[in-house]
C-alpha cells in the first residue's frame, strides 16, 4: 500500500514540478495577505496619544500599547500576529482547491484506470491527500519566508531556534493533514468541479473566520469565541504565535504547547478516519 501511495503521489508531484507556474497563485496570495493586508493594520497605532486636545501621559500610552500587544499574543506587529493566520489560510485553501485535480482525474477517466488496477483504495485516497499536503506545506514554507523578508515583517522573540521552527512545522503539518483528508474525501465524492468549489467555499471560509487566524480571540463575541476556541486552526495559529513570539518557552507555555499539539494530533487522526470512510464509499464500484 505504501509503495502504491508513493508512486501515485510521485506522479502528481512530478506534474507539479514540471509546471512551476502552479505555485504562483499560492505565492501571490501569501504576498498580498502579508504585504498588503498585514501591513495596513497595526493595533498599537490605534492607541491615541491625546484625547480632546489633552495629551495622555506617555507612561499610560505605553501601558495601553503593551496591553494591546498582549491581546495580540505579544506579537511585535500585526504581520507577526497574522503570519500564523495567513499560513493557516494558505494550507486550508490549498488543500481544499487541490481537490480540483482529483475531480478532473475522475472526469478524464484516470480515476477509473486506478480503480481497475490491483491497488488498495486506501492508497488512492492517501495519495490524493499527500500530493496536496506536499504542495500546501511547500507554499506554507514560502509564506513564512516571505513574512520574514518583508520590511517591518515577522519579528521573532529572543531565543527563536530550530526547535521552534520544527514545532511550527509539526503544528501546521497536523492541521494540513487533518483538513486535507476531509477535503480530499469530499473531492472524491463529487462529480464536477462546480460542486467541489461550492462545498469548499461553504466550509473553508467559515472555518478560517471562526478561528484566531486573522484577529485575536480577545476581540471575539462570546458565542464566536466558544466555537473558535475548539477550532484546530486556532490551535495551530496560537501554537505558532507562541513559538514565534517566545524563543524559550516557560513551563506554562510549554504545557499549552503540548496540549495544543495533542489536540491537533487527535483531530488529524479523527479527520483522517472520517475522510477515509467517506472516500471508501465514493471509490466503491458504482
Amino acid at each position, binding site marked *: 500500500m505504501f509503495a502504491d501511495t508513493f508512486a501515485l503521489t510521485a506522479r502528481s508531484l512530478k*506534474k507539479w514540478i514540471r509546471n512551476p507556474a502552479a505555485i504562483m497563485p499560492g505565492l501571490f496570495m501569501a504576498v498580498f495577505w502579508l504585504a498588503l493586508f498585514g501591513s495596513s493594520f497595526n493595533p498599537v497605532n490605534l492607541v491615541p496619544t491625546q484625547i480632546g486636545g489633552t495629551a495622555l501621559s506617555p507612561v499610560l500610552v505605553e501601558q495601553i500599547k503593551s496591553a494591546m500587544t498582549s491581546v495580540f499574543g505579544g506579537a511585535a506587529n500585526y504581520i507577526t500576529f497574522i503570519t500564523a493566520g495567513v499560513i493557516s489560510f494558505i494550507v486550508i485553501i490549498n488543500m481544499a482547491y487541490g481537490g480540483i485535480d482529483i475531480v478532473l482525474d475522475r472526469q478524464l477517466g484516470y480515476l477509473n484506470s*486506478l480503480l481497475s488496477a490491483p491497488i488498495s483504495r486506501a492508497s488512492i485516497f492517501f495519495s490524493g491527500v499527500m500530493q496536496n499536503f506536499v504542495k500546501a506545506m511547500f507554499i506554507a514554507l514560502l509564506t513564512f519566508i516571505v513574512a520574514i523578508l518583508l520590511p517591518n515583517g515577522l519579528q521573532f522573540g529572543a531565543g527563536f531556534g530550530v526547535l521552534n521552527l520544527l514545532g511550527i512545522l509539526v503544528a501546521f503539518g497536523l492541521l494540513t493533514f487533518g483538513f486535507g483528508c476531509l477535503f480530499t474525501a469530499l473531492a472524491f465524492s463529487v462529480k464536477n468541479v462546480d460542486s467541489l468549489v461550492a462545498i469548499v467555499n461553504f466550509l473553508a471560509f467559515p472555518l478560517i473566520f471562526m478561528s484566531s487566524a486573522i484577529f485575536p480571540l480577545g476581540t471575539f463575541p462570546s458565542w464566536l469565541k466558544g466555537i473558535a476556541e475548539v477550532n484546530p486552526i486556532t490551535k495551530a495559529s496560537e501554537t505558532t504565535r507562541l513559538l514565534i513570539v517566545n524563543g524559550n518557552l516557560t513551563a506554562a507555555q510549554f504545557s499549552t504547547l503540548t496540549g495544543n499539539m495533542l489536540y491537533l494530533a487527535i483531530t488529524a487522526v479523527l479527520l483522517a478516519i472520517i475522510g477515509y470512510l467517506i472516500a471508501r464509499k465514493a471509490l466503491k464500484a*458504482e
Partner: protein
Amino acid sequence: MVRRQRPLKGIENMKTNIIEAANLTKTYKKTVKAVDHISFSVEEGELFGFIGPNGAGKTTTIKMLTTLASATEGKASVAGYDVAKNPGAVREKIGVVPQELTADDELKGVENLLLSAKLHHVPNDKARGKAKELLELLELEGAAQRQVKTFSGGMRRRLQLAMGLIHDPKILFLDEPTLGLDIQTRQNMWTYIRDLNRKKGITVFMTTHYLEEADSLCDRIAIIDNGVIKLSGSPSELKAKRGGTILTLQLTDGADISDVLGEIQDVTEVEKEAETYKIKLTKTENALPAIVENITKKGLKISDITLAKPTLDQVFLQITGDNMRDGAANGDSFGQRILIERLK
C-alpha cells in the same frame, strides 16, 4: 418479467471460458436498465467483440467485468474469479484500455508506462524491459522520452494500449480502441490488436461501434442493443445467417417474374421495384446460375446486374433498426471535450 437468454451456441464443449457472464444486469437509479440480463462467455485466446450503438450497454458491461461497476443482478467471472467476490484477483489478471486517454500530458511516454507498471506491481527491472518491448512493438520508441502532450491521437491510443499491457495481463479489455482515429491509423491499430491476440495469446474483449472493425478483428461478436444481446456468433456466421448476398437485377422487359425467382433454391427473398429486382441469396454459387438460366428461358434480357456481399452493417441494421451513431458513449461532456482535444 425476467428475460433469460440462452448461453451462446456451441460454447459448452470447447476450451476454458475465461470470461463468463450469467444474467448480468445493471440498473442505474433504480429504473434505467443499462444492461438487462445478458449471458455470454469468452474462451481463452479468443478475440471477442461487443458491438452496438451508443448507450447500448457496452461500456457498462466492461465496467462490470473490470470491477468498476457492481452488477445489480446476475454474476460474472473473469479469469476464474467472481468479479463481485474477488475483485482484487480479477484486477491482477486484466489489462484495461479505456475509451478515455488517461496518460498524463506532463509525463513522458515511458514514465506513463512505468507508472502503470508500478501500479500493477511489476518489479522495476522487468518493467523497464517490458516497456522497451512494448514501445518497440507499438512503434513508439522515438516518442518514449517526449511528454505525452506532444503526441498525436494515434500515438496516444497506442500508448494507452501499451499501458494496458505492461503487466502481461491474461485478458485485455479494449473499450472503443480506435475511437476518433482516421482510417489509416485505425487499420494500424487493428494489426497491433490482432498480433497481440494471435502471437501473444492474449484474450481480448473489445467494444466498438465501427462494424468494419468488428468484422476485421473479432473471432466472435455479440450485438447488443438497449442492454440486451440480440445476436451473437462469428462475423461470417452472422452475415450468412442474417445478411445474405444481395443481387440487384434490371431487366429490359416489364413482365413480373418475382414468383419464378422466388422458387429457386437458395433465394430467400425477392423484392421488385419498377424494373429492378432485389434478390437475397444464401449460396451465390448455386443461385446465380439458376437465376440467369430462368431469365434466359423466359426470353428476357438483363440490362444491369450487381452483386453485393453481405456486410455486418446489413445485419446490424436488421437487428437494431438503427444506424450507428458516431461519437463516444457515456461520459460527461467535459470529458468528451478533452478527449476530442487530445485526439487532435
